[in-house]
């Protein structure tokens, strides 16, 4: 027979006014299995808690029910009190007779009846409670940062400066991300490279950061505090440890006209290249698709072709036979900072979209996108910072900017606002005016979204001081007409159709997540929205956490973001991680699922429904090593205790501690007493 103690609280007048607490205590005293039942004015007060501890000791209680306020209020308090009296805290539960009873009813008799029902129900539940142990998980005090844009760089530096080790994985040959391509940055117009390069070098030199450029995450397993990550280091065909970055190879390369990705295809690079002069690491990489040696080899040539770079290298660093290699790292936390890509019309349109033939991108050479404009305006760009049109190298005197191309366009593009383009278009008009004094910038816009400190002032400056002409309306189509581009727009404020002649057109195309982000998100079991942006755990209160404990998100891979936002997120993620690392072990509620491997039939319905990927597969073998069956196993480090597996399991082989079937049946049965 159980020996349960029931403690009915008056909460001063809060409960006592409507519920006859003495009658509740009396009724419960008669209930089978109840060894002790009392009422008291303030159960959570020190004397109240002492009453419970004393009763546990004196009456040898094996379960405690406190009929008082909501468990959200004081469950921790009373469980601690029980632990203080050497009763396993998970044998203590609360019946909510305040929020769910005394405060919402006036009829004293009926409220008292209900309070008795509620207390009995919980008594029945507690009869089936088992002692549970708080789960402790050791923490590996190392972090993995995926993506070396400004967000990844900031997160890596903050974590490393906080004393923990960091592995930074970047898929391109250099870190820096999009910020390294920008000319000057809003809202202050400071030079992007000038503020970014020192941070990149800091990453490179930091004793606690292991930089793995030209690498990708191959597989992830484990859980918060204990992830194991397999990283693929792609073969550069250059041995990074011998190369000293002299650049002789790139000068010697015979393939010199490959469109440079860094310069957004506006300038050339060689087949062996560093993306840009300030690249970190400054080790070249051979682009195999365009290298004469590798092309000949792929065609099956027996004699080695070219090899000019290897001849030029005095250190013998070129290694044509280098293969991809794999590294395994153990980390306790992960930051996803994979950033964005620009929506390239025609090139990577999402399925089923018919695109923007009307804007001539890809067919009219002087129609470019925002990043291409950045390269033109950048002092390190293909034109040395002169704004020149790609078609004939002439200085454009009239530039038309189109905002919201592919954004805010549910019919053909993305429904969302890309958030940064209003600002960078204003920036572009200013840079243009500063470089081409007699040039006229015209902007077609629908709304100017410049919410940020100094942001609206910035766009106003473009209009008021730098002469940008803002036309409210969208453009229907544009086309090349001899030397000029005809832009057919509409000024909705004056109500007139407008046909402008432009020398160049810049499209502010939508910001989209990186390609392949879905595959990475699946490896990490974090969720993403229909566009591929990583979902935060809560849009307001947990903006840098994901739904998977220990995985964080920063920068433009979560939503369109500018640099200040990306950096703020990165620092927030870093401080969350440092907080996590400040504990030697993580404590977790033991409300986790357990599989009875004897019963489990291996159908894996549970695996399918688990939102956290906590269900793993385990092989059961006989002593000879023959496979008997494969069963489910719940990883307690990952399980968050939702119980979906249990409700789904056809053979009732998985149980959620704290909410077992037995416990809940007992509650339901008690309601009918």
């Amino acid at each position, binding site marked *: 027979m159980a020996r349960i103690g029931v403690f009915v609280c008056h909460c001063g007048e809060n409960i006592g006014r409507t519920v006859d607490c003495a009658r509740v205590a009396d009724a419960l005293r008669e209930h089978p299995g109840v060894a002790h039942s009392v009422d008291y004015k303030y159960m959570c007060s020190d004397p109240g808690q002492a009453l419970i501890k004393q009763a546990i000791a004196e009456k040898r209680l094996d379960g405690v029910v406190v009929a008082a306020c909501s468990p959200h209020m004081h469950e921790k308090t009373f469980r601690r009190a029980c632990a203080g009296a050497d009763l396993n805290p998970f044998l203590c539960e609360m019946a909510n007779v305040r929020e769910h009873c005394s405060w919402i009813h006036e009829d004293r008799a009926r409220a008292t009846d209900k309070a008795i029902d509620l207390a009995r129900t919980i008594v029945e539940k507690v009869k089936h409670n088992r002692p549970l142990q708080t789960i402790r998980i050791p923490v590996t005090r190392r972090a993995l940062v995926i993506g070396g844009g400004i967000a990844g760089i900031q997160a890596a530096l903050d974590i490393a400066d906080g004393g923990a080790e960091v592995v930074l994985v970047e898929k391109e040959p250099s870190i820096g991300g999009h910020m390294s391509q920008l000319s000057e940055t809003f809202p202050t117009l400071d030079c992007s490279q000038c503020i970014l390069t020192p941070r990149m070098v800091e990453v490179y030199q930091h004793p606690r950061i292991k930089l793995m450029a030209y690498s990708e995450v191959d597989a992830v397993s484990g859980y918060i505090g204990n992830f194991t990550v397999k990283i693929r280091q792609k073969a550069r065909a250059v041995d990074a440890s011998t190369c000293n970055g002299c650049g002789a190879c790139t000068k010697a390369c015979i393939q010199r006209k490959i469109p440079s990705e860094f310069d957004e295809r506006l300038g050339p690079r060689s087949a062996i290249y560093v993306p840009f002069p300030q690249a970190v690491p400054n080790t070249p990489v051979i682009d195999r698709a365009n290298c004469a040696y590798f092309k000949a080899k792929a065609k099956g040539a027996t004699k080695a072709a070219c090899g000019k770079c290897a001849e030029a290298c005095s250190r013998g660093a070129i290694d044509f036979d280098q293969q991809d290699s794999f590294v395994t790292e153990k980390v306790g936390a992960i930051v996803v900072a994979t950033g964005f890509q620009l929506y390239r019309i025609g090139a990577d349109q999402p399925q089923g979209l018919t695109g923007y033939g*009307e804007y001539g991108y890809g067919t009219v050479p002087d129609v470019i996108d925002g990043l291409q404009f950045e390269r033109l305006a950048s002092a390190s760009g293909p034109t040395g910072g002169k704004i020149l049109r790609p078609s004939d190298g002439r200085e454009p005197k009239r530039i038309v900017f189109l905002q*919201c191309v592919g954004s*805010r*366009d*549910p*019919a*053909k*593009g993305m429904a969302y606002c890309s958030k940064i383009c209003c600002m960078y278009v204003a920036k572009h008009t200013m840079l243009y005016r500063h470089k081409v004094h007699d040039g006229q910038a015209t902007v077609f816009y*629908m709304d100017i979204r410049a919410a940020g400190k100094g942001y609206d002032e910035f766009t106003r400056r473009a209009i008021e001081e730098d002469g940008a002409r803002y036309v*409210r*309306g*969208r*453009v*229907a*189509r544009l086309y090349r007409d001899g030397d000029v581009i005809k832009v*057919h*727009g*509409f*000024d*909705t404020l004056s*109500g007139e*159709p*407008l046909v402008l002649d432009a020398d160049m057109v810049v499209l502010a195309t939508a910001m989209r997540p990186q390609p392949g982000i879905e595959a990475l998100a699946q490896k990490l079991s974090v969720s993403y929205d229909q566009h591929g942006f990583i979902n935060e755990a809560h849009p307001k209160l947990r903006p840098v956490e994901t739904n998977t404990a220990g995985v964080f998100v920063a920068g433009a891979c979560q939503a369109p973001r500018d640099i200040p936002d990306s950096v703020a997120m990165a620092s927030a993620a870093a401080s969350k991680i440092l907080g996590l690392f400040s504990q030697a072990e993580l404590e977790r509620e033991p409300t986790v699922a357990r599989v009875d491997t004897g019963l489990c039939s291996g159908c894996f319905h549970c695996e399918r429904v688990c939102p956290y990927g906590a269900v793993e597969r385990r092989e059961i073998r006989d002593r000879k090593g023959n496979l008997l069956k494969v069963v489910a196993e719940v990883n307690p480090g990952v399980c968050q205790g939702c119980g979906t597996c249990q409700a789904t399991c056809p053979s009732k082989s998985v149980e959620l501690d704290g909410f077992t079937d037995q416990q809940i049946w007992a509650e339901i049965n008690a309601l009918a007493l």
Partner: protein
Amino acid sequence: MSAPPSEAGSHHPPTLTAHLRATTGVNVAACYQCGKCSAGCPMAVETALRPHDVMRLAASEQRERLLAAESLWLCLTCEACTARCPNGCDPARVIDALREEAAHQAPRAIGAFHRSFLDQIRAFGRSFELGLVMTYKLRSGKLTQDVTTAPGLLGRGKLKLVPHPIAGVSDVRRIFRACEKEEA
């Protein structure tokens, strides 16, 4: 206690917005007045109300003003507007629907043309161009213009002088009556 708005609303005739949504599937409230439709409309230089104006007035329930507008009848149904609307708004379809509404109160040249044309089909099952030119001229009152070109057409074997009703003309007439009854 006041009644919920949906109940109060149901006693009034449907709004123009609701009517358009029901008949065309277009939610005029989705139009954010970007003007992309009007920017590409070939008639925008001639019309007082451009497609985005039509959407705006519809969204603000200006039924009378819209139905009286000559601009409705100047739309070529070229669908350039619809093809490019970022919100899938289909102004061409909305204009069509408004024309249908306004049809009975539109004794204008273009309304006259459409009616002449349909009269031909009703009579013969197919259109018959000389008859079309004649009835249209009579209706619109423009008698001189174009009649001179008829000999040119005739000379090239392009105008038929005698109409030939198709065998199934009574079937076609029945369809006309049925549609008029259904839409009334």
